[in-house]
């Protein structure tokens, strides 16, 4: 491969302002490109830059914000910047984890969109040298009353299940929220966690002049190529071949690729490996070169393709799934090939690491693209556009929600409780997660349905606790507080499972950053997230940003989803959220307040999204987690469940009937809170609270006191088949069967109605 001057390919379209615009580059960005090259770009170069400088690859609107996040702690082995973050978990073991969004593909083709989202995040984790041991997902849809939303929901769930189940990685947890804010723009975030030995960690850094670059895995087709320049043409038969195509996942090939990649990494024959994800070959090769500060040359004619006649433009930008790019040690090519062959996969040398500081793409003898140094990655512009809060949202927040009159039905608080439990956002998600294999690998101690999942680390007495959390309504009403709560809630959830929170990954799902009100949300949410992570000592090891989540009705709720990893240092400390038996004392850690703003109660019962979200005291959350940990490790906690959506009574009801086969009754005495409005005590979402069942209430109260955490006995578990509540001078009861039916049947009942791609049915 000898260098010659870059030449346009015969037949390539001329570079015109219109073509540049179709590739999503602003005139300023185009000028920057021309300055970088010192000449007019070729069509191939334009395509490459358009992908590399896209929001998705370049983080141009979020990078300055992300830099403010805390990323360090003694246990962090790899922070942001790699395919996944990595933390040490003791015994020389480490876990790699990351979350990633597939929102836009899932809006178009939910099954494949979700499936390939899972595939992508699995690859991000196993390219670190880690064996994936758990998957989670965080999903948002519009109301299930619409047949299209049911179709989206059903197919996203099926896509997630079919992919993870086939690869054989248990899906152990997640969250699903239904809200009209996500109509037309569902969110599909997938998180993967993998296990490795610290000495097996490998980074995607190209090194070693003369080392071969090898394409591995599936063949390259015309999938997902950003067909910007064709978007304005009719979809006639002639250009059918060129239109952007849905990426189809092949979990079977992924499983083979996973095994082959881990074998390759352990073999010592390679120096780096990276998946070909967004912007495929282009971004994987350019990023590896940039991290290593070396040059690379690639010949697109060497790439194994699925269909004839692919141009360099197409080969570089294809997003065909289940492919990897490997930098091997020179002379070890046949060893690499042998490993791939064992797994019935392809490996073709397509380029090499070169001393010359350029990123060069050849088509046989012709140079079709060439960029100086690492400019393709490092020279991308970043933007900090104007930010300003939407006055309309500020007004909503300032509304006095205490003044909202009660509905007549609320005279029966049991009605309100049942209605909240039957809200799809609160109701049991078993309809979805029983389609996910949660027990493969035989290490799942706590699967979906509890506060956090717990997965045993084989060969140790330890486990990791995992969860994903975000209440987008809070973030909408007050981004900084909402993001703090997302982190605090995630930390509380893993703490309830018996773990110490260790680190987070995050997925920033926002609307169009060029709108000042959206950029304000982004800036404030990142600020709040960083603050919470600092106080809770859970650094950010990576994440993903998904912007432009908008439908004609407007932007989604700003949704900075937090994926938390905690460490359980003794399997005996693993704790579940449901009441295990009658005869325990129920202790509330934390305190009630008169807050109702942003609550599920206002949303569901009054159709109102208003008020300030609950205050969060981060130092108090830290103390709460400390107290909980102390009580759990001292063996004093029979169950622990954090109070979140729906408030105290919903939390207690979930403890009673979360396990439908083994319901446990309870009696609550809430008179101590009678100074507060009844509905705020029952359904307000004050932060920093955990419902604990214990056989040693005095010891739990003492532990709480020692940690400076308010705590109070609020009742006991019973063998009665009801939840009985005394407050404001009256005693009311609601049967467990009625609660269980509300909670467990809500989603299955809705999903018996037809689901279609069309909006009306």
């Amino acid at each position, binding site marked *: 491969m000898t260098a010659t001057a870059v030449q346009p390919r015969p037949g390539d379209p001329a570079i015109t302002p219109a073509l540049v615009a179709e590739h999503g580059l602003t005139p300023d960005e185009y000028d920057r490109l021309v300055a970088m090259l010192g000449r007019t770009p070729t069509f191939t170069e334009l395509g490459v830059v358009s992908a590399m400088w896209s929001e998705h690859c370049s983080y141009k609107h979020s990078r300055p914000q992300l830099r403010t996040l805390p990323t360090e702690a003694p246990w962090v082995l790899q922070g942001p910047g790699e395919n996944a973050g990595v933390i040490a978990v003791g015994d020389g073991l480490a876990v790699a984890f990351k979350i990633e969004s597939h929102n836009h593909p899932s809006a178009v083709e939910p099954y494949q969109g979700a499936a390939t989202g899972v595939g992508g995040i699995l690859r991000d984790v196993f390219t670190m040298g880690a064996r994936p041991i758990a998957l989670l997902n965080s999903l948002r849809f519009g109301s299930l009353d619409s047949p299209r939303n049911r179709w989206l929901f059903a197919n996203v769930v099926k896509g997630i299940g079919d992919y993870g189940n086939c690869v054989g990685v248990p899906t152990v947890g997640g969250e699903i929220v239904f809200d009209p804010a996500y109509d037309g723009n569902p969110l599909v975030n997938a998180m993967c966690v993998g296990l490795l030995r610290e000495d097996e960690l490998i980074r995607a850094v190209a090194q070693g002049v003369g080392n071969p670059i090898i394409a591995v895995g599936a063949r390259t087709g015309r999938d997902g190529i950003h067909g910007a320049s064709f978007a304005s043409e009719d979809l006639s038969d002639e250009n059918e071949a060129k239109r952007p195509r849905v990426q189809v996942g092949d979990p079977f090939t992924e499983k083979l690729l996973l095994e082959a990649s881990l074998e390759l990494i352990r073999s010592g024959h390679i120096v780096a490996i990276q998946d070909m994800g967004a912007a495929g070959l282009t971004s994987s090769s350019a990023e590896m070169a940039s991290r290593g500060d070396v040059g690379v040359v690639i010949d697109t004619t060497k790439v194994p393709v699925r269909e004839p006649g692919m141009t360099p433009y197409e080969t570089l930008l294809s997003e065909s799934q289940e492919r990897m790019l490997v930098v091997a040690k020179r002379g070890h090519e046949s060893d690499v090939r042998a490993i791939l062959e064992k797994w019935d996969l392809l490996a073709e040398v397509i380029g090499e690491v070169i001393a010359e500081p350029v990123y060069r793409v050849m088509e046989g003898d012709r140079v079709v693209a060439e960029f100086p140094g690492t400019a393709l990655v490092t020279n991308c512009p970043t933007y900090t556009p104007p930010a300003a809060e939407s006055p309309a949202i500020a007004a909503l927040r300032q509304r006095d929600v205490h003044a909202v009159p009660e509905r007549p039905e609320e005279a029966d608080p049991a009605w309100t409780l049942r209605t909240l439990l039957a809200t799809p956002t609160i109701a049991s998600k078993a309809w979805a997660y029983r389609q996910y294999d949660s027990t493969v690998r035989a290490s799942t101690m706590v699967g979906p349905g509890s506060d956090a999942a717990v997965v*045993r680390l084989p060969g140790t007495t330890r486990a990791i606790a995992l969860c994903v959390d975000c209440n987008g309504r809070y973030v909408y009403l007050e981004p900084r507080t909402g993001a703090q709560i997302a982190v605090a809630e995630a930390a509380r959830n893993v703490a309830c499972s018996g773990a110490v929170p260790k680190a987070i990954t995050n997925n920033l799902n926002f609307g169009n950053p060029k709108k000042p009100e959206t950029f304000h949300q982004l800036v404030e949410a990142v600020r709040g997230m960083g603050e919470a992570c600092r106080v809770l000592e859970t650094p950010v090891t990576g994440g993903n940003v998904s912007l432009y989540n908008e439908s004609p009705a407007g932007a989604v709720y700003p949704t900075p989803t937090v994926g938390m990893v905690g460490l359980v240092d003794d399997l005996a400390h693993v704790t579940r959220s449901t009441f295990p038996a009658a005869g325990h004392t129920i202790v509330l850690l934390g305190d009630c307040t008169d807050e109702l703003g942003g609550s599920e109660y206002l949303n569901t019962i009054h159709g109102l999204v208003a008020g300030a979200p609950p205050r969060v005291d981060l130092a108090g959350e830290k103390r709460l987690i400390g107290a909980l940990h102390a009580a759990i490790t001292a063996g004093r906690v029979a169950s622990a469940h954090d109070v979140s959506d729906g408030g105290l009574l919903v939390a207690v009801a979930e403890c009673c009937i979360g396990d439908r086969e083994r319901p446990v009754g309870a009696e609550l005495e809430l008179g101590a809170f009678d100074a507060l409005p009844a509905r705020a005590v029952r359904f307000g979402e004050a932060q920093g609270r955990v419902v604990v069942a214990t056989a040693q209430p005095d010891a739990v109260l003492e532990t709480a006191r020692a940690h400076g955490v308010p705590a109070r006995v609020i009742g006991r578990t019973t063998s009665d088949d009801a939840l009985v509540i005394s407050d404001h001078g009256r005693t009311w009861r609601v049967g467990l069967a009625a609660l269980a039916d509300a909670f467990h049947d809500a989603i299955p009942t809705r999903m018996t109605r037809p689901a279609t791609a069309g909006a009306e049915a």
Partner: protein
Amino acid sequence: MKVGVVTFPGSNCDDDAVAAVAAVGAVPVRLWHKAHDLQGADAIVLPGGFSYGDYLRAGAIARFAPIMREVIAFAERGGPVIGICNGFQILCEAQLLPGALLRNDSLQFRSETVALRVETTATRFTARYAPGQVLRIPIAHGDGRYTADAGTLAALEGDGRVVFRYVRPDGTRDDAAATPNGAMHAIAGIVNTAGNVLGMMPHPERALDAALGSADGLPLFEGLFATVSA
């Protein structure tokens, strides 16, 4: 005593099966699908997973893997073989067991812990259980609806070759409510006429430790170990 665990492309419970074999003190031997030799294994496990992606039909392609020629010969000589989940599907496709495993009647994958009743303790695999014992064992499959013609079903029932049946947690039968996949006669596991080949949809290798929810799978592997080392 050596137990061979076959890895097909797409097997994903092979590690778990290896761990289960080791847990009862036997020596696990990994067998590669392209191999032509069972490496002296005294028993064989065909593990769960998605061999060949379950493309075409679950188990249909794996049934022709080179190693299967040896497994079939081994089974025909009376060697003990357990097929779990995808392994059961492969055994049916290979006609070592009668019938077929079709798409769950819900048309959805089902992952949950089910109650299974031990219908016979007269097999080497179930000798360690009490007659009628109710086990809690995880299932995780999309194609578990056991289907066979009337004659086959009558023979299975008549010969006492239905080994595990889906039941209510209290052990009583309620096929419509207790069967997670629409299996005929609520069948979860069967043996062949000679009694040396067991196929079952549930995953006993995921039920070896009460800390993970159930240790009810352990006696099955102990039973296998006992008969072979006897």
